[in-house]
């Protein structure tokens, strides 16, 4: 019996001790007519070998393309040591560190993670993780609503340059609590329009959400936006890419006072693309807001002998203690992903992260230039961008991308598919440090060929 160690003798001995004659007797409190029939929808069991044969074939089906899609998930080099360590049984098969003394490994690691995230964002406090960047933003919104003492508003202002899937996620989550999101439109430079913003002057919103870099890869003028929001009595929620923070200004240093909450997707810090997860959402805030923080927080303390140790702290915010009055319902978080990210950040250090960020930026600029040289192709990058940029094609982006995919180049995403973008010819392209000059040349060729061979593709 796979994974069940019981021999016939074991079973007999156990039944004898319990005093029943069969395992079925143990279910005698369950009404007979409720008992399940056989599970016909489930296939027959497989050996590990058979399973691996199937899964290898499946994995192979999806493999082999060169990927220039970004849009919230980024391909970076992941040092081999990262997952070698994270998948050690002691990290991977432990659970939430409820018994602190027997979980100092996980606890110290999370404390170190929190410290690193505070450093990277220049904020005071980090929690131990949320599910992902998008749901993390929803938690940040709820925090802001609870935490803004100056405002009673249940409204939040967001930039239209926020990732559309983040916006959707936040809406699914917070509208149940009658919270509304309103959107400030973008200008031609694909950034928040100062004019549009002016229209909200003097209105009551709990917070302004500022993405940096924004969904289009462009860098918002975060200092001005932050100061503006603070002047209006809004809190500032920064949505940031952690890799970029080694290069660009961290939320804690935006404007005169810094952002109040910083959230984002942790995936770029050592997590594989892996079809979208597990990733993790990070969330940091000012000390003022710590009691509004959702999820676990680890604190440093002393043991009975005065030795340093780590433990869950401020648990009175959490559901297992406060139940209906908790700051969030989150329980299981993304622990192992955080473990990997902590090893990743440690290996790279600030210098290494900076090199990664700079290499991404330089590579992205290179490709943008290459593409701009193709006739009919326009790079819409008036503002500075980080490692993603928008390209206007002479025909529908989704068709072009399909043709490129057939040549094993995943060239980006068609903006019209993800966001409400009306122009179907726009696509969003991402380049990271993983791409060589050959790869960039291959992209250019694939695009050129694709544009040349107009006509639909079936698939």
């Amino acid at each position, binding site marked *: 019996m796979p994974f069940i160690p019981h021999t016939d003798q074991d079973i007999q001995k156990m039944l004898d001790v319990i005093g029943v004659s069969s395992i079925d007797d143990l279910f005698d409190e369950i009404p007979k007519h409720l008992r399940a029939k056989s599970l016909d*929808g489930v296939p027959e069991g497989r050996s590990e070998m058979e399973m691996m044969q199937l899964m290898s074939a499946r994995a192979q089906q999806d493999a082999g393309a060169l990927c220039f899609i970004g849009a919230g998930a980024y391909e970076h080099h992941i040092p081999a040591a990262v997952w070698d360590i994270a998948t050690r049984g002691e990290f991977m098969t432990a659970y939430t560190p409820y018994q602190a003394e027997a979980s100092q490994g996980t606890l110290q690691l999370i404390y170190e993670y929190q410290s690193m995230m505070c450093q990277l964002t220049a904020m005071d406090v980090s929690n131990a993780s949320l599910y992902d960047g998008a749901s993390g933003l929803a938690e940040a919104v709820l925090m802001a609503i609870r935490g803004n003492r100056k405002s009673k508003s249940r409204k939040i202002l967001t930039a239209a340059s926020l990732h559309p899937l983040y916006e959707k996620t936040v809406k699914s989550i917070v509208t149940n609590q009658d919270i509304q999101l309103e959107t400030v439109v973008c200008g031609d430079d694909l950034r928040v329009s100062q004019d549009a913003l002016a229209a909200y002057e003097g209105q009551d919103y709990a917070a302004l959400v500022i993405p940096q870099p924004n969904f289009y890869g462009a860098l918002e003028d975060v200092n001005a936006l932050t100061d503006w929001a603070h002047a209006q009595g809004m809190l500032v929620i920064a949505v940031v890419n952690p890799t970029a923070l080694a290069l660009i200004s961290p939320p804690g240093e935006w404007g005169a006072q810094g952002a109040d909450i910083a959230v984002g997707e942790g995936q770029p810090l050592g997590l594989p693309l892996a079809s979208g997860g597990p990733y993790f959402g990070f969330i940091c805030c000012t000390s003022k807001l710590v009691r509004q923080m959702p999820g676990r927080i680890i604190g440093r303390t002393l043991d009975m002998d005065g030795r340093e140790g780590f433990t869950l702290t401020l648990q009175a915010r959490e559901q297992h203690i406060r139940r209906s009055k908790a700051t969030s319902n989150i329980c299981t978080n993304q622990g192992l992903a955080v473990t990997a990210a902590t090893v990743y950040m440690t290996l790279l250090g600030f210098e290494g992260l900076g090199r990664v960020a700079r290499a991404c930026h330089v590579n992205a600029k290179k490709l943008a230039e290459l593409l701009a040289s193709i006739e009919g192709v326009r790079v819409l990058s008036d503002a500075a961008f980080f490692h993603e940029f928008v390209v206007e094609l002479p025909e529908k982006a989704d068709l072009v991308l399909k043709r490129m995919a057939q040549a094993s180049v995943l060239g980006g995403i068609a903006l019209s598919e993800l966001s409400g973008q009306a122009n179907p010819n726009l696509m969003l392209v991402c380049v990271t440090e993983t791409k060589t000059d050959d790869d960039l040349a291959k992209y250019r060729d694939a695009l050129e060929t694709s544009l040349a061979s107009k006509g639909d593709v079936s698939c």
Partner: protein
Amino acid sequence: MLIFEKGQPGRFATSQAPKASGKCDDIPAELMRKTPAAMPEVSELQTVRHFTNLSRKNFSIDTQFYPLGSCTMKYNPRGAHKAASLPGFLARHPLAPESHSQGYLACVYELQEILKDVTGMAGVSLCPMAGAQGEFAGVAMIRAYHEARQDHARSEIIVPEAAHGTNPATAVMCGYKVVEIPVRTDGDVDLEALQQAAGPQTAGIMMTNPSTCGVFERQIEDISRIVHEAGGLLYYDGANLNAILGKVRPGDMGFDVLHMNLHKTFATPHGGGGPGSGPVAVGERLLPYLPTPIVGRSDAENGSRYHWLDQDDLPDSIGRLSAFMGNAGIILRAYVYAILLGREGLHRVGEFSTLNANYMATLMQQAGFQLAYPERRATHEFIVTLNKQAKELGVTAMDFAKRLLDFGYHAPTTYFPLLVPECFLIEPTETESIDELEGFVEAMIAIQKEAESSAELVKGAPYSQPVKRLDDVKAARELDVAYQRS
């Protein structure tokens, strides 16, 4: 020592970063970072050594029996991890075109089907990223259902007092008021209280069955009737599905919606706190509201093709719960687990987890420990109360828990559910052998003897861990949650 306290300025794992590359002077100066972050400055060897040694300070399934009640700490097949880590799966971008996603989508689709069958429900969405998010999705669907019917008066969710903290917290996140109802001394819900609580203001009830008392709620059909008659829906918290996998299906018990904890029942590793995966399954009524995206299949002459179903296909969906599609890697692991066990193996999960729990419960009782529900069958877990020991010897459940660590066993869940004083919620799981079960009971007996003869010994435990008992009060009062370089 913290990783920040090791190393020297300027040190890092140089192999891991690109060589210093071109300029970034096109970015306006005021947007550039000015102060460097004080990150660790260590070598690759120092990193490996630091974290390897940290890991060695953990208890885990791979190293110890870990009978944490309500958490289903069972063996996490290494094969599942290996399969989910195949390069083709790891490299797939979440927004990759369907032409480059058929392998992954096939797995997702088939897991949806398996979970439908296992739960007896009509539809499944794998989006939620943990049990609590599954609860959120489930209750949000209940809300969407009532709203779609213009049934706006329903503002309450009923929750038995034994419920996990996520249940009331979730109800609130969905904009509901929580009404707690008591549990009787036999572990079942107080039906009269339920009858009184249920009414036109009731949106639904959230239940775990078997409950967190470790017993099967025998009146489930009455409960279903009462709540449904009041116009509410039944939410099944599937955290305890392991107990009944293949034996009873939530759909057959009358539940309208449920979540599963794949990281529990489907054996994906708990990762020191996560990630998990909390798919939701629904009956016909709630089908339109499932969170997106879901995977659909279209069968053509040249074989099946899989595709995403999104908001466009499910316009009444409660929407997205994450930027992409939940914890994909955990979904793959659960799928692998399901096909390794197969229909015949899934049946046995409920059977043997129940056998193990009942065996342990019997041994514990024979050894003189007090079961919270002695007249009941244990399910996959059971509760022992150490109230007597606390009162008579001054040795609490906490003390027993800490002393167990010295015996090489992780402690069971302590002080939950809240209604049983000084309790241990013990869940051995089906993957533990009789040897481990007996070893644990022997340790408990030994600690009981210590408690009787030298209570201070037990109260000072643990002695064998990297630290002794920690000062939680200090941790909360003098908050130190991030290292400050001095």
